[in-house]
């Protein structure tokens, strides 16, 4: 690795290769860890082009990195090489309120973009829960979606155009500024969800929508998870347009109650639903219809409000769930495994039950919650991460869950992407997709330098793909 050359491209102050830097940039929010050889922070498109030309000629891997909040090892540099930290390119280039789009550099943070859009009465809505730090580049890399995607869609629905530096350093301008474009391959869409394996996004043109004037949230409690599941399926089938539809199972409820003292009723399931828009009467209609559906399935409506403070209060149990899960039991960790499957609406409740069943069978704790309005079922495996046996159980549980999800017509990842931890199950489930993706990858990155060994090229065993971040006792580590 010619570090001096990289320094001459971006400036010495933007290149680091000390062990401490490499160690930190080898981790993200997944269970994986691996070290790059150097971390480079480019400041311009030209610099990125030159880095790519150099890396391509020397066959050095490049892993683009946003905030490193991916949960499956997306930005973990499995093959070493260069980590390209994109956070320096964080300018919102322009906001065009009349044309309803904006142009940003890839390092812009989602929440910052939405703060900047607010004065125009606009928003960029596919934000993931991690929007406070997640970068637009990373969100496009993952095709992120979030709490409001049930109504507003995922990142893919908002990317109008992209400027991308290809593996050989060529800069291509893809897509358009207009809402629609019927002209050839939608290559910019191909980049969405490509997890840094096809090109480096250097600029994005994003579609914007008006901020809703009102939001109304309602909460329903269920004594039976199945009833909650049926309510969700019926709400969607009824033609209602919730702007949010979330589920929490009994373990999730218990977690927030015991660790955060939330005082939620210890029922079998809670669903939170929201409607938004310009006209209150229309929102009332949506909310009432959804409430009626819940009641029909024995749900009890416990709260409804337009008021921001009250909405925040009611929703805080769901909002703080992550913290609660992390503290579920002394000595336990909340591991990101099998964390974001999507299943057909009618399978939601069954899926949640199945998750509990599988967890019991393999001796781990798993909760089911998530953006059920978009069909996404989140889980987390809660266990003592220093216990080798638990990892064995976790491995089996992950496999069993993905088998089930595949059987009912669901997908391995609805939200967080594939990268490393989900690759084995996903490869098994989608052989045709693998073939096409391999051809595309070969065409665009023949030397396999862009985030190599991810997605279809990821190792067949996630557990041994990299050292697992948790185990302090080295004897127990896998990698």
């Amino acid at each position, binding site marked *: 690795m010619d570090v001096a050359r990289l320094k001459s491209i971006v400036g010495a102050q933007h290149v680091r290769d*000390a062990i401490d*830097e490499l*160690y930190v940039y080898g981790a993200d929010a997944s269970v994986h860890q691996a070290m790059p050889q150097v971390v480079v922070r480019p400041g311009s498109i030209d610099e990125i082009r030159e880095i790519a030309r150099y890396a391509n000629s020397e066959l050095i891997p490049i892993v683009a990195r946003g905030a*490193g909040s991916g949960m499956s090892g997306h930005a973990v540099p499995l093959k070493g090489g260069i980590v390209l930290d994109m956070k320096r390119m964080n300018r*919102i280039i322009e906001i065009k309120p009349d044309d309803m789009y904006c142009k940003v550099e890839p390092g812009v943070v989602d929440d910052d973009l939405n703060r900047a859009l607010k004065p125009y009465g606009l928003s960029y809505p596919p934000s993931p829960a991690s929007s406070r730090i997640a970068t637009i580049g990373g969100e496009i890399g993952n095709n992120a979606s979030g709490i409001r995607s049930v109504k507003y869609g995922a990142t893919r629905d908002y990317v109008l155009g992209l400027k991308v530096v290809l593996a050989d350093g060529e800069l291509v301008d893809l897509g358009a500024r207009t809402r629609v474009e019927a002209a050839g391959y939608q290559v910019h869409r191909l980049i969405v969800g490509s997890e840094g394996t096809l090109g480096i996004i250097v600029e994005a043109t994003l579609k914007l929508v008006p901020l809703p004037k009102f939001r109304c949230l309602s909460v329903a409690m269920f004594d039976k998870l199945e009833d909650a599941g049926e309510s969700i399926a019926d709400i969607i089938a009824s033609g209602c347009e919730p702007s949010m539809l979330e589920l929490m199972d009994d373990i999730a409820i218990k977690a927030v109650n015991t660790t955060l003292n939330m005082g939620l009723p210890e029922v079998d399931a809670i669903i939170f639903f929201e409607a938004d828009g310009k006209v209150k009467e229309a929102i009332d209609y949506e909310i009432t219809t959804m409430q009626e559906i819940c009641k029909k399935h024995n749900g009890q409506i416990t709260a409804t409000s337009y008021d921001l403070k009250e909405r925040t209060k009611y929703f805080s149990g769901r909002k703080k769930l992550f913290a609660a899960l*992390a503290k579920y039991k002394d*000595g336990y960790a*909340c591991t990101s495994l099998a964390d974001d499957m999507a299943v057909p609406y009618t399978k939601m409740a069954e899926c949640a039950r199945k998750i509990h069943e599988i967890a019991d069978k393999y001796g781990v704790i798993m909760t089911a919650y998530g953006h059920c309005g978009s069909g996404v079922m989140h889980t987390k495996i809660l266990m003592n991460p220093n216990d080798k046996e638990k990892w064995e159980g976790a491995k089996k549980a992950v496999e069993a869950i993905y088998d089930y999800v595949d059987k009912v017509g669901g997908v391995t990842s609805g939200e967080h992407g594939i990268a490393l931890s989900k690759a084995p199950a996903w490869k098994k489930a989608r052989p045709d997709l693998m073939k096409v993706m391999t051809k595309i990858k070969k065409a665009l990155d023949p030397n396999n330098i862009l985030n190599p060994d991810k997605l279809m090229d990821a190792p067949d065993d996630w557990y041994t793909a990299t050292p697992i971040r*948790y185990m302090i006792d080295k004897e127990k580590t896998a990698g």
Partner: protein
Amino acid sequence: MALENLKKWEKELNTCIRCGYCYENCHIFKLTNWESDTPRGKLILAYGMINGDIEPTEDIAKKIFECFYCRLCEAGCSAKVPVTEILTDVRQVLLDDGFDVEGTHVEVDEDKCCGCGICVSVCKPEATTLKEENGDKLATVDKVKCEACGVCTVACPSGARELKEGYEVSRKELDAKIDKFVKEKLPDDAKEKTVTFCCNWSVFPGLRLSVLPFEDKESNKTLVTMCTGRVDPEMIVQAMRDGIAGVLISACPLGECEHDANYKTLRRVLLLKKMLQQLNIEPERVKLTWVDTNEVAKLEKEINSFSEEVSKLGTVTVE
């Protein structure tokens, strides 16, 4: 090896999900933009040192000793990890292991220190003590405990204490920023220039990770001073002398200051206002306001209305 002592944090370090929420508002990260300077990065380093993946180095130690203890990392943490408690322990261990590095802690100019001990009485984290040397008393700073709030730098009657340069909060750096702002040309419709001194523990508009398209065009410049208890009246007068028409100070509400220092700020501002009156300068040019951590909108409003008021007063001349 003292690193063994850190094993007790293993469980807490395991609960960290490495989401990165901790660095959203991290002052140090914003200065350097390197992930290794984020609380997450430092916890990962601590983890690596405990499990033997990496050896402690001067570079690592320096990072660990850089923290202003605003605890915004803990407020933002998904898993409620006691970030600063862990990292303070890591400091101690590294120091015990011989890594006596320079960090964010307050510096004492021994030539100026008169050994009066006022700094000891204002230091909430008890990081300051007096030591005897050849019969003279000298103030010292405990590098592990010092939270770099800066309160002692104003309390010190001999000007012997200062926040380190390099973090954009030393007196020299703040003065330079004000100076630069004074020299900047404003758009024609902009009003008199004002400055807002913001507390690092409360809220400040600079809490952004991205660069917005139209920044720094307003007639107000917000500067983070660390605790407002370190806002020296002399700093305010200096700003006015430089050509700033008004100074707003945004502090945590009374009773909520981590350093018990906003009462001191209140007293100082009251005295300063009296002094300004004697100098025939409108006391309204200085205002102290209380803003809680989540009151972003309030701060914005306060800045706007203050700028409005000051623009009515016009420019100021300080002899």
